């Protein structure tokens, strides 16, 4: 034991001189230096038993890292990254697909113009994601899994992420062929497939033939849609009884609205109604072959 202590002080001197990263962790108790006992800030999980990060967390991270590296290596040995013909700007492949993680947006081009599908919608997605913590004032469900106490939030996220984002990526990857036409997996891609262009604008369908009248008609439809959406959201929330999923608000709907405030309500409502608008546009396209709802010389929606 004596020799071990001797070694330790030797290490301490070396560590003090060279400040070697790993060795500093082992500075012995008798080394004279009072080592930091990092203060543990308690911001959650008060009273729950705590484990030492070393070894309990580091151990599982280490094992997981090994597992991931093994899987990735085997995968990379078995499956080669694609490399096609040299680039040729004069030869456009049909279909030209964006990287798979953007295919949800490319799929949106079926229903919207590029400025909306490719610029405005993704901006809404990014800003909307960032705003989630500030819009969601339900204090329940912080740090544990629960569906009962957060139904509304979880369903919104599910619709936005799983249904709109992920399933559209799957559609774009596996179900779209030449001309961005729908092909079932295994079906032969026919580049000469003719799709009848029977889409009409909604104002045209209702008999409007000039731009001004069409624009006024379309704009009032969209404004009306938002008014109805906001009103529906407002009354739906106000009629919520106390209890789940908002057990944190014993006053029920009116208390939720009061604590939420008009700004949060306005932004949340806008994002949800815009998201629902994607579904409505899709339904109108598939059921009635509607091309645009709002038609103006500058923008079409």
């Amino acid at each position, binding site marked *: 034991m004596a020799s071990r202590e001797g070694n330790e002080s030797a290490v301490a001197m070396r560590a003090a001189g060279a400040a070697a990263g790993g060795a500093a962790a082992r500075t012995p108790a008798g080394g004279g230096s009072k080592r930091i006992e990092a203060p543990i800030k308690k911001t959650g999980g008060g009273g*729950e038993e705590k484990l030492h990060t070393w070894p309990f967390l580091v151990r599982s991270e280490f094992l997981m890292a090994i597992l991931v590296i093994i899987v990735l290596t085997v995968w990379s040995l078995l499956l080669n990254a694609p490399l096609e013909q040299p680039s040729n700007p004069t030869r456009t492949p049909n279909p030209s697909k964006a990287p798979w993680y953007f295919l949800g947006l490319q799929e949106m081009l079926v229903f919207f113009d590029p400025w909306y599908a*490719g610029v405005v919608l993704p901006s809404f997605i990014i800003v909307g994601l960032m705003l989630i913590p500030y819009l969601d004032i339900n204090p329940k469900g912080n740090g544990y899994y629960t569906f009962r106490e957060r139904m509304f939030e979880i369903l919104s996220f599910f619709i936005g992420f799983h249904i709109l984002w992920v399933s559209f990526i799957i559609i774009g990857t596996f179900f779209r062929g030449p001309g961005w036409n729908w092909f079932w997996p295994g079906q032969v891609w026919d580049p000469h497939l003719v799709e009848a262009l029977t889409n009409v604008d909604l104002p045209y369908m209702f008999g409007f033939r000039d731009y001004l009248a069409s624009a006024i008609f379309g704009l009032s439809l969209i404004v009306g849609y938002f008014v109805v959406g906001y009103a529906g959201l407002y009354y739906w929330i106000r009629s919520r009884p106390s209890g789940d999923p908002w057990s944190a608000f014993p006053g029920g709907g009116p208390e939720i609205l009061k604590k939420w405030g008009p700004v949060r309500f306005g932004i949340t409502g806008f994002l949800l109604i815009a998201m629902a608008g994607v579904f409505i546009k899709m339904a109108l396209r598939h059921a009635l072959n509607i091309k645009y709802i709002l038609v103006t010389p500058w923008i079409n929606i």
Partner: protein
Amino acid sequence: MAKFDWNETKRQITDSQAWQSIFRHGYEDTPRNRILMVSGNVWLHLHPSKVQKHAVRLRFTWCMGGITFLLFLVTVVTGVYLMFYYRPTAEYAYADMKYLEFDMPFGMLMRNMHRWAAHGMVIAVWLHMFRVFMTGSYKPPREFNWVVGVILLVLTLLLSFTGYLLPWDQLSIWAVTVGSNMARATPLLGHGGPFHEVLGVNPVYDARAFIFGGAEIGPHTLLRFYILHCIFFPLIAGIFMAVHFWRIRRDGMSGPL
């Protein structure tokens, strides 16, 4: 024959001159040492010294944040290897891809690992975000770390997208063309977007030209994407990662109140 005593054998080994000349001193498993292992180690001190019991469970974390970071590190290591053999100019880029695949030792493996890790990272980021949402971990006091996380999500996609162009094959230039054409449709700033005439933008001077470094995809775009991919976005992502991890360490893992 004396009974075999494992502890005695272990003591003999660790007390031997050879062992002590290598390892100098042992590791005593005390609570103090366990904390020092984390707080005194430049890498491990990204963790808090202690974590709540539930936060260690895989069922709670899915380990997706850690896997994202690990895959990022894999792309850094394999990416550096690829950079040794890849020239971001239109004449050589594609030929260098072939050279990497057929002539370089482990070139194909490095390229495969780089690409699959990049794709895996995108998926892992999404799953991480999904998990954080499901546990409500963005709720106070961690709201801003969620915002940082969304920025990191965007950076992950940008890293992946800029890397997509570099093989300089048909797949890459047309995928990037389709993706970047969206910039052409930006209201006001893109020459194909609504109200473009207000600012007088045109194909050689608009939002897409800013991304491409010219009116259409070409050698200038390749160099631009290469620098964004290898230097700019990794640096920015590194800064935001530091903030992201630091805030997790300060606030601790979320848990039931």
